[in-house]
């Protein structure tokens, strides 16, 4: 019945070593993620200029004190656009992952705890979604609905939740199969409390780690959709769209695509590493 196992979600730490040094590195990585989030949240205060309005001559090279990272093809401040783009990309990715986690989590918990026909029905539906090529369906969906951040996020969320449903279900089932759940049941713990107190806490670490690793993927996919003209329409600042729109200028004004491109890289890299960090901090899986 299952089509795809989801091993992507069980990747192991990449750079962090073992032991205490590993924990310290993990904290640093998580700290980086927090810093990036702060940067995104505070974009409007940190950005020197309006991200939408041209503020100077077009294609000013980076290095000038007024426009540290230069200006883009129509004279907007690249630094400001990148900061706001960070905000859009970061929160979009968070939204997609959060929706995936929420919907997938509810479906997964319902299937894992419900068992029987509930499980069968929910997992058949999930499998069907999983069997569809997600990226392609997202592309087709956005191509059909028309570009726009809302549609893009909608399209991506639709293809994103089944992974979480499967993952959460598998985790729930493995936790439910652990003796402590049976022991708690025998000890007279009610059903709701059983799920909330004895099952879910065991699922959260994996789900959180997976989600944080996934944010990088979402950021990249968003950027890819933008490249195809299916992302955030101009003039709103979005890293992927800015990189994509700027690629034309790679040869004449390299900083226009490279700065937001590097921001995508950093975002996705930090999300990836922080995922590993969180995994380290949450300790080995029991």
């Amino acid at each position, binding site marked *: 019945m299952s089509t795809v196992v989801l091993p992507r979600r069980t990747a192991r730490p990449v750079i962090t070593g073992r032991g205490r040094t590993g924990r310290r590195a993990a904290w640093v990585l998580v700290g980086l993620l927090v810093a990036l989030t702060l940067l995104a949240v505070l974009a409007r205060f940190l950005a020197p200029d309006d991200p*939408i*309005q*041209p503020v100077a001559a*077009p*294609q000013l090279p980076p290095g000038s004190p007024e426009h540290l990272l230069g200006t883009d*093809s*129509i004279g*907007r401040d690249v630094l400001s656009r990148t900061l706001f783009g960070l905000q859009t990309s970061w929160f979009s990715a968070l939204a997609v992952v959060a929706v995936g986690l929420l919907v997938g989590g509810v479906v997964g918990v319902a299937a894992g705890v419900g068992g029987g026909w509930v499980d069968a029905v929910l997992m058949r539906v999930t499998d069907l979604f999983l069997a569809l090529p997600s990226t392609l369906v997202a592309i087709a969906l956005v191509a059909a609905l*028309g*570009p726009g951040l809302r549609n893009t996020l909608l399209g991506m969320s639709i293809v994103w939740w089944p992974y979480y449903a499967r993952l959460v279900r598998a985790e729930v089932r493995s936790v439910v199969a652990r003796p402590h759940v049976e022991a708690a049941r025998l000890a007279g713990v009610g059903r709701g409390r059983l799920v909330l107190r004895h099952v879910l806490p065991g699922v959260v670490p994996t789900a959180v780690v997976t989600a944080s690793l996934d944010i990088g993927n979402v950021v990249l996919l968003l950027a890819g959709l933008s490249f195809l*003209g299916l992302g955030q*329409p*101009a*003039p709103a600042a979005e890293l992927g769209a800015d990189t994509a*729109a700027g*690629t*034309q*200028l*790679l*040869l*004449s*004004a390299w900083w226009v695509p490279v700065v937001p491109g590097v921001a995508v890289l950093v975002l996705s890299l930090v999300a990836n590493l922080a995922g590993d960090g969180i995994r380290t901090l949450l300790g080995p899986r029991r």
Partner: protein
Amino acid sequence: ACSGGGDDSGAPKAAPTDGTLTVGLLGDIGQPPDPDVYYANNGLAIVLNTYEGLVQYADDKDSVEIAPRLATTWDVNADNTVFTFHLRQGVTFHDGTPFTSAAVKVAFDRRTAVKGGAAYMVEGVKDVATPDDLTAVVTLSAPNSAFLDYLASPFGPKMESPTALAANAGSDDTQTYLQTHDVGTGPYTIAAAQPGTSWTLKRYDGYWGDKSPFTTVQLPIYTDASALQLAFDHGDVSAVVAALPSSSLKKYEGSKDYASYLLPTLQSALVTVNPTKEFFKSQQARLAFLQSIDQKSLVDQVLGNRSEPATTLYAKGMIPGGADKQELTYDPSVMEAYAKTLPAGTDMTIGFASGNTNAEQMANIQAAKLQALGIKATAASYPTSQVFGWINDPTQGPDAFFDGNNGPDGGSPYMWGHVFWDASGGINYFGCEVPEVNAQLDRAVATGDDALYVAAAEEYAKTGCYYNLSYNKDWVLAQKWLTGVEQSHNIGANELDFSKLGIAQ
């Protein structure tokens, strides 16, 4: 596609020694290079070098002037209904059969049968008579002074070998065959077709005209502008015609290693206003908006040398003497006053086609200007398919739309007025039309009376739906050794006639 190379980028590249010219295309040519089907731009080079029409626009001129091609001379009767063409002698099709007047009717008939986008050009043909092999008399059912422009248009009817058409007719009027072959008389013939990848043209040795030193023309398809530019820098591509973004212009202009040409076209950058939107309900508002556009600096900043600010309502040189003057003066105060009457924070959207960087920049700059006036203006991109859907429900569209580059199929003022001002014309995105203007245009085309054209234009300008921003030019980028670029280009076709190109000694 990657011969040569190894030399330092920057230094002029050596001319090819194997007689191969490589012209890079940006993006798939889309439709098949069938003259009765092809209705796009980046593949025109194939159509125009393999087929020829009866007439063409004069090469190397920045005004509209009909020049001979397969017809050496022609006569038009007084009421523009009978056109008599005297055909060139000694012309053969690529299948070796001679070109005679019989082919004219065949070509017109096929165009009607195939029902392509430019089939309208032969709609009015009532009859084609062939008194002798080298004379064709075309009779129209109604007077049409634009008929010669139809024939000169790059999308106009081209002469096709009746024998070859019949031999490969299939069930679809030879359409399948012509997806990868040609049946024309042009200086080149299709030697190999890999749709989506590359096209190879071979010199037609039976060609009636001058022959270029290029025995083969390669047209590789690049799908990324930067990749194409790199290939050109590298010397793998000999010339790029109107494919690279203006933002790259700076790098090549005045370069001593590459040749950069800016050649005249009938294309313009335009603003279209959407009268169905609340914001632009009143003519006064629309005109205020157009007046708030700083045409000169906008064109200068965004398009640079690729264009000049337009001063007429039609394309440059369409109305001799420029009587169709565009009377819009930059005055943001009118808009400012209008803005004050609006509720605070009223928003409006300025659209542009996705991927069109020039339009994007213009839209953004204008949006910024409006914001300074206290209007919540935003620039937004729309995919092309959506843009052409607005005509069905203009309220779906933005409040105004910036077109970076657009124009008519041919050089007649009628063709211009029709596409831009008549709601059925195709580029009148928001259906802003004046029945009186349409009628005036119809009357003008019958006689070719410039005064009527001017009157129609002036009438339409009052709607405030339309602003001709600039006269655009084709940017042709070529290696230093390539000669004859200007001479191989005309105002109608945004492509080069490869037979007129050469290698510098």
